[in-house]
């Protein structure tokens, strides 16, 4: 309002001013706010070539960690982070070869690390290895870490199952007491208390050792503070070394000093001297705000190699629904990478398509991942029923008909646009992993609608057996379009309408599937370690049945017998046996191969050394930030 003007007449005279000013101010505020929120990718840049002055890598994660306790971990997203914080005795290099980590060598019969009968491993520890709190890594830490992991009985405890005394320890640890508070503290505390007196707490006041929690096959010949560990197996094991090498799980070495003070929540706390997430890796947890962010910092004077160039890794925890804003932030340079942390499957097709048709296309890294998706038939659960149950010629013939009616190559191009997946033509084990049969070597990958129709006519001439079939799957991602594709192929090539049963809750779906409650269901596996045993033990046969994980119910004495033998052999001798197992499954038409997953990463050109192999992100200590 202009001063001096008559307030009534002036109101009329200056009528438009307040509104115009207000609107103008609003516009200005919006632009100013936009500027406030601006991020210039050049803000930290330097024109000179070489490393940027700030070596802080920032990327989003689309999942919260469930647990980073290696004794309890069970998710890829967790192990992707933990591999940078914890070390095992060995590690997988970028080509998935097993190389020394805390151990000085990879034990073989030739170097004396493995006894001639294959039952005893002698491991020498790197004497320079330390936890990030300064504690030296000695034999007692290996014994404690593995004893504890077995006692906790987590999802990956079976990785240590070949070690003598495994069952005894689990029996001694028993079941946790019923919780009245909803907290698992009692169980984990009793294990910590039982082991404290055996290792780092030995001799301290009040510490007692519950020796029944110690694996009899795990000893320290040079003493607990020495650098030699001897592992005695109850039976020969050709896959154990790979399983023990799996990062972030039961093979990881943890610090008893840090865990003892808070057995449940130690991993959620920043690393301290005697508490928090203490590890031996190149990075330590500096901050963790659940469902918000994590900060990892490089360990100064880290004992391993390569020495980290990054000083800090900042991770924002996002919901997958925030993908669009996250990608926009990456384009602005706020994030160095999208896809790290087990999230390479989160970029959807529209996003990837928009990237490939833009100037950012060179920043897209496409990497086949070790995950296969297939369809499982109900073979061994008569209670569920359906035409596919059993080993009769009719059941096998109908399974074959449904398999041959699906165009796997067409599925990969139609559903995945040849970007998100590739056709699974080389067997269940993904390309790039040991046990892959070779391109187009899986007979079940064939597409032959004519033979499919003949088989259907032969085994179900009236159509009564195949009427009212249902394919079940958990919704989300590629599962919905894949289901529709399958339905369409069966309708087109067999003239059969298969009902779709989309299950919104993944845990419910998995529970039902593991219980054999579906006649046809989506199935799949993401490999843990590069050994075919990881597939054939966990998904079919007597071991899977005993573990409650035999989706199809397929079990066969010949399969079981070959599996038993294969599991005990070194990989070069075991491989032909595992291939026999693959053939048994193929001859039985136990599955319909669908696709191999492909991961997609967005990596800024100034992030050097980042990448991924079939299994894991490259370690953070290989990454550096270039001037930009």
């Amino acid at each position, binding site marked *: 309002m202009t001063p001096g003007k008559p*307030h009534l007449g*002036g*109101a009329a005279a200056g*009528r438009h001013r307040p*509104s115009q000013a207000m609107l103008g101010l609003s516009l200005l505020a*919006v632009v100013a*706010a*936009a*500027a*406030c*929120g*601006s*991020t*210039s*990718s050049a803000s930290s840049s330097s024109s000179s070539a070489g490393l940027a002055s700030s070596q802080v890598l920032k990327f989003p994660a689309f999942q*919260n*960690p*469930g*647990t980073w*306790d290696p004794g309890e971990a069970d*998710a890829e997203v967790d192990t992707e982070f933990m591999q940078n914080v914890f070390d095992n005795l060995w590690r997988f290099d970028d080509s998935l070869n097993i190389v020394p980590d805390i151990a000085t060598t990879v034990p073989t019969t030739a170097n004396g690390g493995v006894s001639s009968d294959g039952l005893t491993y002698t491991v020498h520890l790197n004497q320079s290895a330390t936890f990030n709190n300064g504690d030296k890594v000695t034999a007692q830490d290996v014994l404690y870490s593995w004893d504890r992991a077995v006692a906790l009985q987590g*999802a*990956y*405890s079976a990785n240590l199952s070949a070690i003598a005394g495994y069952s005894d320890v689990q029996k001694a640890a028993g*079941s*946790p007491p019923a*919780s*009245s*508070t*909803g*907290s*698992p503290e009692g*169980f984990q505390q009793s294990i910590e208390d039982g082991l404290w007196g055996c290792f780092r707490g030995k001799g301290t006041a009040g510490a007692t050792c519950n020796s029944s929690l110690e694996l009899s096959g795990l000893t320290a010949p040079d003493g607990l503070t020495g650098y030699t560990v001897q592992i005695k197996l109850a039976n020969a094991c050709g896959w154990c070394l790979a399983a023990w090498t799996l990062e972030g799980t039961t093979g990881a070495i943890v610090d008893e000093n840090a865990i003892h003070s808070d057995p*449940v*929540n130690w991993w*959620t706390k920043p690393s301290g001297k005697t508490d928090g997430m203490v590890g031996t890796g190149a990075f330590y947890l500096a901050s963790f705000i*659940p*469902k*918000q962010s994590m900060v990892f910092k490089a360990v100064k004077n880290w004992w391993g190699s390569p020495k980290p160039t990054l000083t800090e890794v900042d991770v*924002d925890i996002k*919901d997958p*629904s925030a993908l*669009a*804003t*996250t990608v*926009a*932030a990456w*384009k*602005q*340079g*706020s994030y160095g990478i999208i896809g790290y942390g087990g999230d390479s499957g989160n970029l959807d097709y529209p996003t990837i398509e928009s990237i490939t048709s833009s100037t950012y296309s060179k920043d897209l890294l496409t990497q086949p991942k070790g995950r296969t998706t297939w369809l499982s038939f109900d073979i061994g659960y008569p209670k569920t029923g359906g035409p596919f149950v059993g080993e009769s010629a009719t059941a096998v013939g109908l399974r074959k008909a449904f398999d041959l009616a699906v165009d796997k190559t067409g599925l990969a191009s139609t559903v995945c646009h040849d970007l998100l997946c590739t056709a699974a033509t080389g067997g269940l084990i993904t390309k790039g992993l040991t046990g892959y049969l070779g391109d187009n070597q899986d007979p079940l990958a064939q597409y032959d609608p004519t033979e499919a129709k003949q088989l259907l006519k032969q085994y179900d001439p009236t159509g009564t057996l195949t009427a009212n079939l249902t394919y079940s799957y958990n919704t989300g991602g590629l599962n919905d379009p894949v289901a529709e594709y399958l339905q369409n192929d069966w309708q087109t090539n067999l003239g059969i309408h298969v009902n779709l049963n989309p299950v919104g*809750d*993944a*845990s*419910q779906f*998995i*529970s039902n599937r593991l219980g054999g409650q579906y006649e046809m269901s989506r199935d799949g596996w*993401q490999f843990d370690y590069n050994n075919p045993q990881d597939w054939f033990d966990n998904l079919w046969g007597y071991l899977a049945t005993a*573990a*409650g994980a035999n989706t199809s119910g397929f079990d066969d004495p010949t399969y079981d017998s070959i599996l038993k033998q294969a599991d005990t052999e070194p990989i070069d001798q075991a491989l032909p046996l595992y291939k026999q197992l693959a053939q048994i499954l193929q001859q039985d038409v136990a599955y319909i191969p669908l696709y191999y997953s492909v991961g997609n990463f967005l990596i800024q050109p100034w992030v050097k050394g980042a990448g991924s192999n079939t299994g894991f992100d490259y370690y953070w200590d290989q990454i550096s930030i270039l001037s930009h």
Partner: protein
Amino acid sequence: MTRGTLIYIVQRLAIIVLTLLVVSFVVFVVVHALPGNAFISQRVHGRSLQLLLHEYGLDQPVLIQYWNFLKGAIHGDLGVSLYIRGEQVTPLVLRELSVSCELGGAALIVTIGLGMTFGVLAAIRQNTWVDYLLTTLAVVGYTVPSFVIAGLGIMIFANFLGSVTGGAIAYSPVWTGTYGTIGELWLPALSIGLYTSGQITRITRASMLEVIQQDYIRTARAKGLREWVVTLRHALRNALVPVISILGTTVVGILVGVLVIENIFGIPGLGKEFVESILQHDYNVTVGVFTIFALLIGLSNLAVDLIYTVVDPRIRY
């Protein structure tokens, strides 16, 4: 504060407590009845699964579980998260609540600030282009959902502006800490606020139009008071009563907006948790979030009722 008001507050607080008990019980029972659980996966099944269920007390009857939950909740302990295993729920949801309060507060400022400013301007410039523009904006704001406004905002201020200016001036859709900066906050707040401010604009305009035609306004002008004094001090105060009457529902609208917008912008607040915890079968978190939302709505409605007495002295409890 009169004795009557005090009694009214106590009664309302008792009803809120009762509501919280009912909400927590119903939600607790319903989420536990949903098929599936937080632990099961391709790798966690059989004995591993049974151990986890036992460890976390989930194999007990649901009423016993609720009783255990309630005993803790009375002492401010909402139990532990099942998804982030062992993480305490109370500090988690309180932190997320504070984040949502920041966003909700900013959205409320936008709602009231824009809504009332536009409403007043439209009223005092009735039947001019300003009136037409602002009422049109209000209708558009009221009819376009907040997530559409958010999407458009991201396209314009993050993507378009970012590409046009080479990233020099653009909205950066990254929430960098627990609490957002003004640069991070304005677009999410605007997305929620534009939607809810539409209603405020319309009510304020209608109310103002009614009030500025009253005799006392004419008298005030005749006394020679400046126009802004007449508008703000005499007209607006009386026009506020109907606006405040819808403030309760507006706050609920903002809370609903927070649920959606936090997911779009990846803001680590209670709204994001609302959806996540259900999908993750994180029972204690879900119950905590629902209970806090019920508490927020109860308290905000109580606050609105108390504000009535300040704005309109005729109202007494």
